[in-house]
């Protein structure tokens, strides 16, 4: 981001190309020479991991689409045929199903990293908002994908979630029903619904891909945040992305693949619901409808509000509120590392989300209803009360003078600007 390009084409062909389409220069500037803070921890590897997840889902999804049939009479059986008959279908289908869950595990860790270290604060507001859009698109994609196997949960989850729009009947009579009928393509969830959900499920990942490009671009303009929340002020604060951040990202991806592989090979159905192995039956509602685990906190919020429209509004608000965080948080200090009071509330917020997730899976009875309402309040209080108020009243801890000082200790890099002796900030030369 800082300074001009350091790319030097090595051959005449490279030079010829560079004068016409500077692609190699772009890659060099963005992913090779790009200055990355030297103190990034492993919470910064989830961006790379998420990119891996997106590519994996697209590749396995396109392959599954070669064998899947989006028709209500054949969908369920086509998934079984993939698992049983298609060469390596037993591997590719779980890669996709487990991959969706891994995608959400990674995105939640990525988001919580942003919340803790203040990565949403200026000048990274647009970066953060693009992230919220990606999250929304991911949720839509995941919902649509889950309906495709046409099991009991697929069908009834589709019915429940599309029926959310009927709450608009409380705003303008008839509008909600009209929208729901329009979504369904019929008078109930059926074949037209399945067919269009398949089309949209194929489409949205490419929309996500486009927003991710903007997200990475916005990141490269302002540069990455880091655990101290301080900006890069001198060369010793940063290291070139290649080889340091690239190898850290690669290593983290391989570690990520370990639980991914464990689920695929040892317990591929663990994160799913057994009822989805029952073919969809429009006349029988399962006793215990739950969405996939990654939607549970929002499901808990939806059910916590007694009013139908109120529940829908609250659930949407729970996601939309994320957009406003850059302006809700009043703290001058970015990183929770130096914000002792906020840190306490942050971990309580993490607990709130986990509690809401648990409660979303519980039946809609007491005492779960009370606690869902309690933690829904906690959830919104974190954004609407804690962030504005704590930022003003809190006394932050003493910040280090620079990133270099936070790594090498006092007496180093106090604004000197020189690369300390012995520090290797470039590839090893021989």
């Amino acid at each position: 981001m800082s300074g001009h390009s350091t790319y030097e084409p090595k051959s005449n062909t490279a030079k010829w190309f560079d004068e016409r389409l500077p692609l190699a220069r772009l890659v060099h500037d963005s992913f090779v020479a790009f200055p990355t803070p030297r103190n990034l921890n492993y919470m910064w590897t989830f961006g790379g991991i998420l990119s891996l997840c997106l590519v994996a889902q697209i590749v396995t999804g396109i392959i599954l689409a070669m064998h899947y049939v989006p028709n209500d009479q054949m969908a369920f059986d086509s998934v079984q045929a993939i698992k049983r008959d298609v060469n390596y279908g037993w591997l590719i289908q779980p890669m996709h199903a487990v991959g969706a869950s891994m995608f959400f595990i990674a995105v939640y860790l990525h988001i919580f990293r942003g919340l803790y270290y203040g990565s949403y604060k200026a000048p990274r507001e647009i970066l953060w908002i693009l992230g919220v859009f990606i999250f929304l698109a991911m949720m839509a994609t995941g919902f649509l994908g889950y309906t495709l196997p046409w099991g009991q949960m697929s069908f009834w989850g589709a019915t429940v979630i599309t029926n959310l729009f009927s709450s608009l009947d409380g705003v303008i009579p008839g509008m909600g029903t009209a929208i729901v009928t329009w979504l369904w393509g019929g008078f109930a969830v059926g074949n037209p619904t399945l067919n269009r959900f398949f089309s949209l499920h194929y489409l949205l990942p490419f929309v996500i891909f486009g927003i991710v490009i903007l997200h990475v671009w916005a990141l490269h303009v302002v540069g990455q945040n880091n655990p101290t929340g301080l900006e890069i002020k001198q060369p010793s604060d940063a290291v070139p992305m290649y080889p340091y951040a690239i190898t850290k990202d690669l290593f983290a991806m391989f570690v990520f693949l370990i639980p991914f592989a464990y689920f695929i090979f040892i317990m591929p159905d663990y994160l799913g619901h057994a009822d989805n192995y029952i073919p969809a039956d429009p006349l029988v509602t399962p006793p215990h409808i739950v969405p996939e685990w990654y939607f549970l906190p929002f499901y808990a919020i939806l059910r916590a509000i007694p009013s139908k429209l109120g529940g829908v509004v609250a659930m949407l608000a729970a996601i939309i509120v994320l957009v406003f965080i850059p302006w809700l948080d009043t703290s001058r200090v970015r990183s929770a590392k130096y914000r002792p009071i906020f840190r306490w509330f942050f971990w309580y917020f993490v607990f709130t989300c986990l509690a809401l997730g648990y409660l979303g899976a519980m039946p809609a009875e007491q005492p779960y209803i009370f606690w869902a309402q309690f933690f829904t309040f906690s959830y919104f209080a974190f954004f609407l009360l804690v962030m504005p108020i704590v930022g003003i009243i809190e006394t932050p801890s003493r910040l280090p003078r620079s990133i270099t000082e936070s790594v090498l200790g006092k007496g180093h890099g106090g604004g000197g600007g020189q690369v300390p002796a012995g520090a290797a900030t470039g590839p090893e030369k021989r």
Partner: protein
Amino acid sequence: MSADIETTNRRDFIVLAGNTFAAVGGASLLWPFVQQMNPDASALAMASIEVDLSPVKEGQAITVMWRGKPVFIRNRTAEEIKQANAVDVKTLIDTRADNAALPEATVATDANRVVKGKENWLVLVGICTHLGCIPKGQSIADAKGDFGGWFCPCHGSHYDTSGRIRKGPAPRNMDIPVYSFLSDTKIKVG
């Protein structure tokens, strides 16, 4: 650590070993994605079929579906077999037997187009070798062409009682698939 750049050292080894590992890893990652497009277990299961021949009387013919293609099975009369044997192979348009069970160069005598001891049974893939239409001749009322076998209405190819091309634009005799007799009245095709 070796300071001498000219001799191979640990860095060279680890670079080579790492790249080899990555290449093998990459290939094994890619293979399932390529292989999944090959025929799956259900397609392979239909790769062989069993046909009961007992309802097919002398002079009658049936058509069965095998690997998505029509297979003609004709219970030939003695007259038809005699006609087929009487032909001089050197005068044929396609002198090769086109029998999947025999080598490519085998000549197209009628004996090479059937199973020994079961010469009345002619089993061939009912697709015209010109451009892929299904020739007529299976039912009694069908036109059988000038040589008493089959006639393709698309472009006028005539096949004889051994399914060999005799007149018309088709370049090859109709193919004989791999088949075997499981009993006197049952064959397995494929």
